[in-house]
């Protein structure tokens, strides 16, 4: 941690300069040396050199090129130290062939710095790794976040996160998981895994209590940036565009969704003037591009639901029938009890209260949501609208009992008093 009053602007500048190209250089080195370990070590050493040299002279004009060339030299030094490893020697030859032995003028650097981040993203999101590791690895290698930053974002202790990263990197190494874009017959499935990781990162930023450490907005932006990066190399993928739309709509509400105490504000209570039109427009653009490809999927449907909310002037003016229809469609792709509950709530807002109540009660009996506070809030709402005062109160009180935080309990209590 940086101590206050000792913040050196040049240090921050260097840190920013390194981070902005970290993933790109690391991917490039990994791709050519066929070793993430070696690439990380070399880039680390290059960063140390950069700090030393730039602290005196200031940051040079092309920090990315400088870091890349320096890291490449460091990597070659490391390989030379381990010359007995013939395999590495082969890699060195391959690498020199690929980028040219002398390659120090800007044009050559530009050419050799061809973006290989997508290859490394597919490695990090390989299905041989567990999801938590996929997320951590992507943030660590592509986005350049430190172990400490990732640990804090996920409310984990530093050693736990460090171990997770080490194990994942070992698995990549020992299994020889390749640094490549999957072949076409595998691409669809593997891409869907990548989208899942991007969405997890975004949601972590959007919902997690831990994300305040990493400042949740930059983390959310990072997820959107990752999606853009994938889109640049794999354009016209309907679900990728759908995910981009979904993230843009949610990002538009970023400033409206948290109060000054850092507590989340429900959609119903949000000040819609704080929603950022720029991002809503962006979301609509992505969604239109996605839908034009005529390959529907769950991200596009969720984005469409978000689009309806984003373009409604008030909560009451929301087109709930359309939202209900979209949830029905979503259920065809992923039928979780939560999605069914959301569908039932949308139905209740269209005034089909008896029907909605039946759905909610069925979900209550099935089990998974039988202790879920929001189910009982929805149930209480339906009962209230149907004039069943005592039953409604009972359901709301049960929701208050089940809720695990005081702010929420107070909120439901106030709602109950407003109702009756």
């Amino acid at each position, binding site marked *: 941690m940086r101590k206050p009053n000792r913040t050196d602007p040049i240090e921050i500048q260097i840190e920013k300069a390194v981070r902005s190209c970290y993933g790109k250089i690391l991917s490039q080195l990994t791709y050519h040396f066929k070793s993430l370990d070696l690439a990380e070590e070399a880039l680390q050493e290059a960063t140390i050199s950069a700090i030393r040299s730039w602290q005196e002279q200031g940051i040079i004009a092309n920090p990315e090129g400088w870091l890349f060339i320096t890291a490449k030299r460091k990597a070659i030094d490391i390989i030379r130290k381990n010359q007995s490893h013939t395999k590495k020697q082969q890699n060195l030859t391959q690498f020199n062939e690929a980028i040219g032995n002398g390659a120090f003028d800007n044009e050559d650097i530009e050419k050799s710095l061809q973006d290989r981040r997508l290859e490394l993203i597919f490695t990090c999101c390989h299905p041989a790794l567990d999801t938590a590791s996929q997320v951590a690895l992507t943030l660590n290698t592509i986005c350049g976040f430190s172990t400490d930053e990732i640990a804090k974002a996920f409310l984990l202790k530093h050693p736990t996160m460090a171990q997770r990263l080490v194990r994942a990197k070992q698995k990549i190494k020992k299994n020889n998981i*390749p640094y490549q874009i999957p072949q076409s017959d595998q691409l669809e499935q593997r891409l869907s895994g990548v989208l899942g990781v991007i969405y997890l990162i975004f949601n972590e930023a959007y919902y997690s209590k831990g994300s305040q450490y990493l400042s949740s907005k930059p983390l959310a932006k990072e997820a959107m940036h990752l999606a853009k990066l994938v889109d640049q190399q794999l354009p016209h993928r309907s679900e990728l565009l759908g995910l981009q739309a979904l993230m843009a709509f949610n990002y538009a509400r970023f400033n409206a969704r948290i109060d000054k105490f850092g507590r989340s504000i429900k959609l119903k209570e949000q000040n819609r003037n704080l929603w950022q039109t720029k991002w809503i427009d962006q979301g609509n653009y992505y969604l239109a591009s996605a839908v034009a490809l005529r390959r529907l999927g769950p991200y596009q449907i969720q984005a469409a639901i978000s689009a309806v909310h984003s373009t409604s002037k008030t909560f009451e003016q929301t087109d709930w029938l359309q939202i209900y229809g979209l949830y029905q469609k979503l259920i065809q792709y992923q039928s979780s009890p939560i999605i069914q509950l959301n569908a039932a709530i949308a139905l209740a807002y269209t005034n089909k209260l008896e029907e909605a109540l039946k759905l909610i009660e069925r979900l209550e009996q099935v089990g998974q949501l039988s202790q879920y506070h929001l189910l009982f809030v929805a149930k209480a709402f339906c009962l209230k609208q149907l004039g069943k005062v005592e039953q409604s109160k009972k359901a709301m009180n049960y929701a208050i009992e089940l809720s695990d935080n005081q702010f929420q309990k107070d909120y439901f209590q106030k709602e109950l008093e407003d109702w009756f």
Partner: protein
Amino acid sequence: MQYLLMIYAAESAEPTPGSDQFMQLIQEYGAFTEEVKAAGAFIGGEPLEPVATATTVRVRDGESLVTDGPFAETKEVLGGYYLLECENLDQALEYAAKIPSAKYGSIEVRPIMQLPG
């Protein structure tokens, strides 16, 4: 790099010897073995006798302890293996998906440990 592809399946899920399905399975295995041989990936691979023929040995405090089993008729048991030379994990996984038993059992893919020296 070498990978061991271990074929796990519930023996009860396997077709009875002599049946048409069994003959088809044998043919599919033959075709798969031919494919990996033609690709130069085949190092070894054999089916195993049923798990009922298994014997287990443990050495504790210098004493050798021999027992019958394991018996796990309902669970997926090791029924055979392939040892393949593959470029990377993705290639190994591609081969694993082509093993006929993958359709009703599962294939565990493990890299062979590279010992130093």
